[in-house]
């Protein structure tokens, strides 16, 4: 019986049959003129997802702005936003829906334009299958390679090669075979095994829904037929049990449940689990849902579990089956796809979100970047928008993980800029660095408190920041003198004693500035640990690095001292003649002129040099230290 007959005659039978319909998510990738939007429009049309009012609108739009000479332009169905309709290009990821008798489909429609690697990775991250489109007239292009590489990077195992516009090459079998052979040679390099090539025409509908009479030599399934039946056996189902704790459910004192969506494996009541990173074990007592308790739950389900023992588990902890445990580490090698206009700065702390855990992380080393067209490995000091690199990451605490190839939920992460809050990168964990498993902090008996009390002082870090010529070093010197006079043990770090030694390998690019400050902050930390009062005097123009320095210190130990001077005044003073040279373009990346200074918003001490002399400023700072209890022995 035809579907519409079934719907008409036996709606209950239809509903029953559709209750267990599966879901397939796929991504389409192709270059600008490969006919991607047309193909998706055609799939919607062929699966009867277009209503009469939409069809009427489509017909009138086709006449107005269509590119098919008055014929229906299927691409118009999917090119959504007003701006891009005018430009005629898709500028973002869009999700489309259609369903047939067998499956529901969610299509991530991603643009093929050169600079949009970011969108493709985003669209592909939730897909089970990829349809890679090629123009039969053009064959394997640089873009085809790039799309394929990205698809393999994100871990999609099922690939359909849709050789489009077959009508424009006379439905030639020879052309088709040559393209497929070319592609297979390349596909071996990136480890694609399961490739199905289909000769199609999105415009004419060849081999989309029904087998085309124009390609009698093609014996394989139509595109729709393949999408409906392909088995995308889910790794997640057979893997070891993993569930991130999303939320702790405590309606009353008698119930404590851990809510999450199961990433992989199966959980049954009575199973032994381990909470990570704490490493505490317990047994599952109940799997709670509003529809009643379950005896088992599988990957993909959102559940709430209760445990036999009262162990401490909170959001961000991973619950794992004890039979196969994830790793726990604080240093990783990972592949990063950079998604921001602002390039990666090694050493800068970013937020890293893995599962439900958000932690501070920074890139410690860029091993290489990967040229997306040639797969060549190139040396790199940074990653720019749409660049892909292999990097080492350091994080501020050990976290549980699996390799991305094993589990996307416990190996895939995003990086977030701490100032702008934007998502700047997608990352995939490859492996933990062995050294992170070997380094254990030595617990020593002589600690910071002991060292400091031997000096009869409280250690602290006074972080002076401000424009070049603002008077940072002058004031810091005066403060140090006063502290010395008070019998305190101090040390001052500034450009003169650091740039010539420890940091002589660094220049003044943004990347080097970040590294400069990172080293200064780490050295300061060691000195504070030694019990000293440390004064640093660096322009330190970026909030993120000052924040990082603050994060290294204990509560109350860090005092940010903002020496506030207007650019005009600093430039007027120009004690070293640097502004003059910067204005004459003799110095690159000069803060205030060609490089930004991000003013502190929450500095502990602000010195306005238009109101206070250097001596008054120093006295004010000492007074502030006293008020904060830093100078009482």
């Amino acid at each position: 019986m035809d579907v519409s007959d079934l719907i008409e005659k036996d709606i209950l039978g239809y509903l029953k049959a559709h209750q267990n319909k599966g879901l397939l998510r796929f991504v389409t990738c192709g270059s600008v003129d490969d006919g991607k939007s047309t193909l998706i429009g055609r799939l919607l049309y062929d699966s009867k997802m277009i209503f009469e009012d939409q069809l009427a609108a489509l017909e009138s739009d086709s006449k107005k702005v269509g590119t098919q000479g008055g014929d229906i332009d299927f691409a118009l169905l999917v090119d959504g936003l007003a701006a891009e309709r005018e430009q005629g290009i898709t500028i973002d990821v869009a999700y489309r829906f259609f369903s047939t008798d067998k499956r529901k489909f969610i299509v991530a429609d991603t643009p093929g334009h050169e600079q949009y690697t970011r969108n493709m990775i985003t669209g592909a991250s939730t897909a089970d299958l990829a349809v890679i489109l090629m123009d039969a007239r053009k064959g394997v292009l640089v873009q085809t390679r790039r799309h394929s590489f990205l698809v393999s990077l994100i871990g999609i195992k099922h690939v359909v090669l849709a050789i489009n516009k077959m009508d424009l090459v006379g439905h030639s079998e020879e052309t088709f075979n040559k393209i497929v052979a070319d592609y297979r040679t390349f596909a071996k390099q990136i480890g694609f095994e399961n490739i199905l090539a289909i000769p199609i025409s999105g415009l004419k509908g060849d081999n989309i829904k029904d087998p085309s009479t124009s390609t009698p030599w093609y014996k394989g399934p139509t595109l729709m037929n393949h999408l409906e039946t392909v088995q995308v056996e889910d790794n997640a189902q057979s893997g070891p049990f993993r569930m991130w704790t999303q939320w702790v459910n405590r309606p009353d004192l008698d119930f404590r449940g851990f809510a999450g969506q199961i990433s992989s494996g199966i959980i049954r009541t009575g199973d032994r689990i381990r909470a990570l990173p704490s490493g505490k074990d317990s047994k599952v007592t109940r799997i709670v849902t509003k529809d009643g308790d379950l005896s088992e739950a599988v990957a993909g389900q959102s559940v709430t579990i209760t445990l036999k023992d009262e162990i401490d588990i909170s959001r961000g902890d991973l619950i794992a089956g004890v039979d196969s445990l994830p790793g726990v580490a604080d240093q990783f090698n990972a592949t990063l796809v950079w998604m921001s206009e602002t390039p990666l700065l090694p050493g800068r702390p970013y937020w890293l979100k893995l599962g439900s855990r958000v932690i501070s992380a920074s890139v410690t080393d860029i091993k290489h970047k990967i040229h997306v067209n040639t797969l060549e490995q190139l040396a790199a000091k940074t990653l720019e928008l749409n660049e892909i690199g292999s990097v080492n990451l350091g994080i501020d605490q050990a976290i549980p993980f699996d390799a991305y190839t094993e589990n996307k939920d416990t190996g895939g992460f995003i990086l977030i800029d701490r100032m702008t809050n934007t998502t700047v990168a997608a990352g995939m964990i490859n492996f933990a660095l062995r050294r992170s498993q070997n380094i254990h902090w030595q617990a020593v008996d002589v600690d910071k408190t002991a060292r400091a009390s031997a000096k009869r002082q409280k250690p602290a870090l006074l972080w002076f920041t401000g424009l070049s010529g603002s008077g940072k070093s002058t004031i810091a010197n005066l403060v140090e003198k006063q502290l010395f006079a008070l019998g305190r043990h101090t040390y001052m770090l500034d450009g003169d004693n650091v740039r010539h030694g420890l940091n002589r390998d660094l220049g003044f690019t943004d990347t080097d500035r970040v590294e400069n400050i990172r080293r200064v902050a780490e050295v300061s930390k060691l000195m504070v640990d030694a019990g000293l009062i440390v004064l640093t005097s660096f322009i330190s123009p970026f909030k993120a690095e000052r924040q990082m320095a603050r994060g290294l210190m204990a509560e109350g130990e860090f005092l940010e001292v903002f020496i506030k001077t207007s650019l005009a005044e600093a430039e007027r003073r120009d004690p070293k003649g640097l502004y003059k040279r910067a204005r004459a373009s003799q110095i690159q990346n000069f803060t205030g002129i060609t490089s930004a200074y991000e003013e502190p918003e929450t500095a502990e001490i602000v010195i306005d040099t238009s109101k206070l002399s250097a001596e008054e400023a120093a006295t004010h700072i000492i007074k502030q230290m006293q008020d904060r209890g830093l100078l009482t022995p």
Partner: protein
Amino acid sequence: MPTLNNLQRLEAESIHIMREVVAECENPVFLYSVGKDSAVMLHLAMKAFYPSKPPFPLLHVDTTWKFKEMISFRDKMVKDLGLELRVHINQDGVAQGVGPFTHGSALHTDIMKTQGLKQALDKWNFDAAFGGARRDEEKSRAKERIFSFRSAQHRWDPKQQRPELWQLYNTKKHKGESIRAFPLSNWTELDIWQYIYLENIPIVPLYFAAKRPVVERDGTLIMVDDDRMPLKPGEKPMMKSVRFRTLGCYPLTGAIESEAATLPDIIQEMLLTKSSERQGRVIDHDSTASMEKKKQEGYF
């Protein structure tokens, strides 16, 4: 190995999204529009936090022109489920006597719905709001993220959206910014109806066909829900068997003639119909790309 079917996957994903919002936002709110999508979302919220109650209030922005049955249904649901409801009406609009008949659909929607929503979010300092929008509803929705950010002025910038990878949602925001979270993003109209049917979810009776008094306006059947409906001289409402595919302000919501009085009937009718869901909404027809424009201005 058992695998989840379409509706099970959608349900699990929606629950995941709701828990993520609750875990990472300070003061979330559930925008309850009383329609079928809201009904499904509410059902999912009850599941997501069980045995706790959903840890957020419901907010209804009442334009004062909603169907009477929507309001009584709303109050009954809130009472039955034991939830907290906050109702906001734009009092400036009421003082100016704004309504669809006197001010037109565009102005009425802007003042009573869009501005009303902004007022309510500001009044209670909500930093995240759940909405029942779906990507299949309309072309500009197809590109919306599941977590969509609004500026302090509640504006949406389609070019500044964050990439959403896997199931990792970046919820970091600046002071004043807020999030619209759409747990039903990946549901289609058919999914919604199938789920309502399978889970036996209560919905406003207006979705089912019944004899109702209607008048015809520009080819659309409008139900005469109260005596504010201006009738032409000599005009009398006709009693017709009608139902609604979407619900909103009664003067702006077209009825369809139908005999579908049960859920299977409705689903059957929907599958055999030739027009899309939003066609009954008068506001979408104002201009091309109108939804996108409204969204940039702060419409949900």
